[in-house]
C-alpha cells in the first residue's frame, strides 16, 4: 500500500541499514527462531555489526520494510552490502518491481551452486570470500538478464540468517573505494579506543 521512499529524491547513497547508531533496525522487521539478531562488536573491525544467527535460515531473518504491505520504493539500481562471511548458510532476497509491473524475487544463497529462473523467483548462488565482503548487486542487469525486463524499484529487502552486517545501502552507481564516503568504508577502530562492547545492544 504504502511506498516508503517513492516520492523522495534519491541519489548517491541511500542506506537502509547501518549497524552503528541507535536503533538501526527500526525500519526492519525481525523474525527469529532458534537464533538471534543482535548487534555485536566484530573482532576484525572492532566495531558494532548486526549479527543474525539462526539454526534455520528460513526462520531467522530481517525484512525491510517491516510492514509487509509497505514497499521501499527505492529506485537506485545498485544494492551494496557490507557483510561478513560466517561460513554458514546464508541467504538474502531482494524483491523488485520491473517495468511490466511484476514483482520479481532475487534469491541469493551461498548453499546453492546453480541458478534457477522461475517466473516469480530467481534463485542464484552467491559466493562470499572469507571475512568481510562487499557485495554489489546490479539490480538492473540481473533483472534484464533473468527476465528481460527493466528495473523500476526495489520493494523489499530480506536478509536471512547467519550473517554479520555492517551496512546495506543503495547507490546510483558503483563507486570506487576512494569515492565512497568514509563511513561507508570498513575500518578498524583504534585499539586505543575503548573497546566497544562485544555485547548485545538492544535493537
Amino acid at each position: 500500500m504504502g511506498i516508503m521512499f517513492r516520492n523522495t529524491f534519491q541519489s548517491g547513497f541511500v542506506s537502509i541499514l547501518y549497524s552503528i547508531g541507535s536503533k538501526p533496525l527500526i525500519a526492519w522487521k525481525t523474525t527469529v527462531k532458534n537464533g538471534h539478531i543482535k548487534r555485536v562488536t566484530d573482532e576484525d573491525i572492532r566495531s558494532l555489526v548486526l549479527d543474525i544467527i539462526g539454526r534455520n535460515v528460513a526462520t531467522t531473518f530481517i525484512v525491510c520494510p517491516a510492514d509487509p504491505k509497505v514497499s521501499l520504493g527505492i529506485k537506485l539500481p545498485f544494492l551494496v552490502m557490507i557483510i561478513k562471511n560466517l561460513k554458514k548458510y546464508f541467504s538474502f532476497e531482494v524483491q523488485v518491481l520491473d517495468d511490466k509491473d511484476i514483482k520479481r524475487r532475487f534469491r541469493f544463497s551461498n548453499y546453492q551452486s546453480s541458478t534457477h529462473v522461475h517466473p516469480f523467483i530467481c534463485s542464484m548462488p552467491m559466493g562470499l570470500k572469507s571475512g568481510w565482503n562487499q557485495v554489489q548487486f546490479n539490480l538492473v542487469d540481473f533483472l534484464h538478464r533473468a527476465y528481460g525486463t527493466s528495473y523500476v524499484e526495489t520493494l523489499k529487502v530480506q536478509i536471512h540468517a547467519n550473517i554479520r552486517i555492517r551496512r546495506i545501502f543503495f547507490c546510483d552507481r558503483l563507486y570506487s573505494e576512494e569515492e565512497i564516503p568514509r563511513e561507508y568504508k570498513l575500518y578498524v577502530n583504534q585499539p586505543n579506543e575503548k573497546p566497544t562492547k562485544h555485547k548485545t545492544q538492544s535493537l
Partner: protein
Amino acid sequence: MDRTMWHEARKQEKKIRGMLVDYKKRAERRREYYEKIKADPTQFLQLHGRPCKIHLDPSIAMAGDSPANMMPWQGRADILIDRFDVRAHLDHIPERQSSPEVSAMTGDEPLEDRQANYERYRILVQNDFLGVVEEKFLHQIYLEEQFGPVGKTNTEEKKKLAEKKAAIPYNYEESTPIEIEEKEKEDEEEEEDDDSDIDFDLNVDVTQLGPEQAHEINSCGAAYGLCGNDFYSFLTRDLEEQEALRLAREQEEEKAMYSGRKSRRERRAFREKRLLGRKISPPSYAARESPTYDPYRKSQSKSRSRSRSPVNSGQITYITSFGGEEEEEEEEIPKKEDSRRKGSGSQSSLSAPSGGGPSRHLSSKKSGNDGSVQGGAASFPAPNHSVASKSRPRSRSRSRSQTSSHTSSSKKSQQYSSHKGGRGSSRSPCSWRRRYSRSRSRSVSPRSQRHYRRSRDPGRERGRERRRRSSSLSSRGRSWSRSRSRHRSSSSSSRSSSVRSRGKRHISPCVSPRKSSPSPPKKQPTPPIRRYYGRRKGDSSSSSSIESDGDETEKKVEDQKSLPVKSVGTGMGNTGAGIKLQVKMTPQERLKKKMQYLLNRQYKADKRAEKMKQEKQEQERQDREDELREMAIKLRRRERERRHRLQDDDDEDDEMGGSGSVGGGKEGSMGGKDEENEGHSANSRSCSRSRSHSSSRSRTQSSRSSSSSSVSSKSSRNQQSHSSSHGSRRRYSPPPNYSSNSYSSRPPPKPSGPNSYHGYHGGRGQYQHYQNYPQSSRAGHGYGGYSRMSHRDRNDYREEYYNRDDYRDDRYNRNGSEYRGRDWGRERERGNKGSRSRSRSPDRRSRHRRSRSLSNQRSYSHSSRPLVDY
C-alpha cells in the same frame, strides 16, 4: 626443368594441405574449448562478494566514527542515524511491532510462497534430509567455487570414473539414508561437485525415494515453509522440468551441429523433422465445424498438396492418348508451362468454359478406353500374345507406310507451321479448332473405318463404355481446355514432323490384343487404365503420376455421376472409392448411348448421301442411255428415211426397173439385219457404256464400300466426303497409334467381328461425342461454337484435302507401287480370311486403285462433285 617444377608444385601442394589440416585441427580444438565452457546463460547470474578492504588507518576510523556522520532523526536525540540513512526521508517511523513472531513459517502460505520457499530452501531441505553438515557443504561449495574449474580439469577423468563407480552405491545410500550417514558424506560431497557443474545441485534422486523417504523429506521441508508433501511434489516437478530442459538442450545442440551457412538444408530437415509429428491445426478460416465441409476441405488439402502437379500430369496423359505417344511428349513441355502460368491465375479462370475443353476430353476418353481395353487384354495374356505376334508385322508395315506418307506431308507441316506463326499472337479459336479437328480425325479415322463393318453388339457395348468414360472425363476437361488450346499451337506443328519418327512401332504390338479379346475390358474397366498408361508412358514419364491420374479420373467419374453436367471447378467432392466401379458404369453407359445415337445418325446420313449419289449416278446413266437411245432412234430413223428414200428410189426403179422385190427382200433382209446390227451396236455401245458405268459404279461402290469403312478415315476428316478417294486413305495415314491399333487389333478370323462396328462407332462416336459434348455441358456457348466451327472446319478440310490429294497424286504414282504392294498384301490376307466387309475384294480394289491412280484427276473431279453438292 620440368621435374624441378613438378617437385616444387608438389611441395607447395603439400604445404597447403598441411595448412588446411592445421586450420581444421585448430578449429576443432577451439570449438571443443568453447563447447566446454559453454553454459546456460542464466548460470552466469551469480553474485559474488569481494573482499572488503578493512582500513587500518586511524584517521579513517576516526572519521568513520566521528559523530559528525551521525545525526539525530527528526530531531530526536535518541535516534541517531547515518547521514545517508533512508530514514532521513521518513517523517515517521512506524513503531516496530517487533514481537519476533514465529508465525513467519506457519506453512499456510499461498502456493506461490510455498513454491518460492521450495526454491529458496530446496538445497537446505535436501541437506537436512541427507544429513549433510552445513560446514562441509559450504566448504565444498567454496572449494568448488575457488578451485572448481582447476580441480575439475585436473581430476575430471578421475571424477568421472569415480562417479561411475559410485553411482550405484550412492543411490543405494540415498534410498537408505539412515544407515549411511557418516560414511557417505564424503561421497556425497564429491557427488555434489559433479552435479554442481551440471548446474543442478539436487542430490536426491526422486525416483528412488520410497514413501517413507518422501514423508521424511517432506517433514524436512516443513521447516522451510513447505507444508504437506510440497517438497516431494515440487521435487518431482523439478525433475520433469529438468528433463524438459535437457531435451531442449539436446535439441539446441543438435541444431548447433548444423550451424554454418552450408548446412542450411540440414537445419531445415531438422526443423521439418521436428514439425513432422505436430498436428497443425487448420487456419481459422478453414476450421469450420460443419461436418459437410470436412470432406471438401480434405480434398482441397489433397489437391493443394499435389494439386498442380497431378493435374498437369493428368493433362499430359490425356493428351498423350489423343494423338499418340510422341504427341504427348511434345505437348508436355508447353503444357507445363501453361499450367504454371495458369497456376498463378484464379481457379475460376481455369475452370472457365472454353472451346478447348472437348478436345481434351476426347483424348482423355479415348486414352482411357484404350487403356481399359488393353488392360483387359493384358489380363488374358495368352490370346493376346498370339494375336500380337501376328499383327505385329502388319502394323509395322503400316507404320512404315505411314512414315513414308508422312514425308509427303511436308506440305502439311508447312501449313501447320504457318498456322502456328499466326497463332502465337492471335489465338483465334477457330484456327486451333480446325487443326484440332484435323488431327483428331486423322487419329480416329482408321479405327472407325475398320470397325464399322464388324458386328454391332460388342462394338456398341464398347462404344457405350467409351462414351461412359468420356462423359465421366468430360467434367474434367474443362479446366484444361485453356492450356490445351494454347499449347496446341506449338505441339501440333512439331507433331506433324515428329510423329513419324518414333512411337509407332512399339505401341502397335501392345495395343494390338485389344480386338482379340473384346469381352475382358468390359469386366474390369478401371485397373487397366493405369496399366495402360503406365505401359504407354513407361519410357516417357513416371508411372506414379499416371496412377494418380487414374485416380483422378475415377473421382471425376463419380462426380459425373452425381452431377452429369457439372462444371469441373466444383467437382472436388470425393465420394468413397468403394463405389467407383458401379458409379463409373452409368456415365459410361450414357456416353455409349449417346455415341451410338450419334453414330447411327452419322451412319444414316452417310447412307443417305450414298443413296443420293447412287441415284445421281443412276440418273446420269439413265440420261446417257436415253441419249443413246435417242441417238439410236435418230439413227434408225435416218436409216429408215434413207431406206425409204432408197425404197422410193427402188420403187421408182421398180417402177422403172421391176426388180424391186428382190431388192426389197434384200433390202428388207438388209434392213432387218441393219436393224439388228443397229440394235446390236447400240447394245454393245450401251453395253460398253454400261460397263464403264458399272465399272465406275463398281468403283464408286468399292469406293463407297471402302468409304463407308476405309474412306471414313478421310471422311471423318472431311466429315462427309464419302466418295473421295480411298487411295488417299493411305496417304492420310492416321496417327500411328490409332492406325496401328485398328490394323493390328483386328482379329483376322473374324472379319465381320463384332468389334468393327463398334470400332467404327467408337471412332465416329468419339468425334460425334466430341462435337456434341458442348450440348451436354453447361458451358454451352463455347462448345456450341465449337460444333459450329467443326462444320466449317469440315469444309475447309475438304478443300484442303482435295488440294492435298492433287498434290499427292503424282506422289502416289511415284511411290504407289510400294504402297499398293504392301497394302494389297495385307488386304489379301485379310480378304483370304474373309474380311469382305471392308473392301469388296483386294484385286478389284487394287485394280480400281491403279486405274484411279492413273486417272486420278478425273476420278476426283467426278467423285468430288456430289460431295460438294452434298
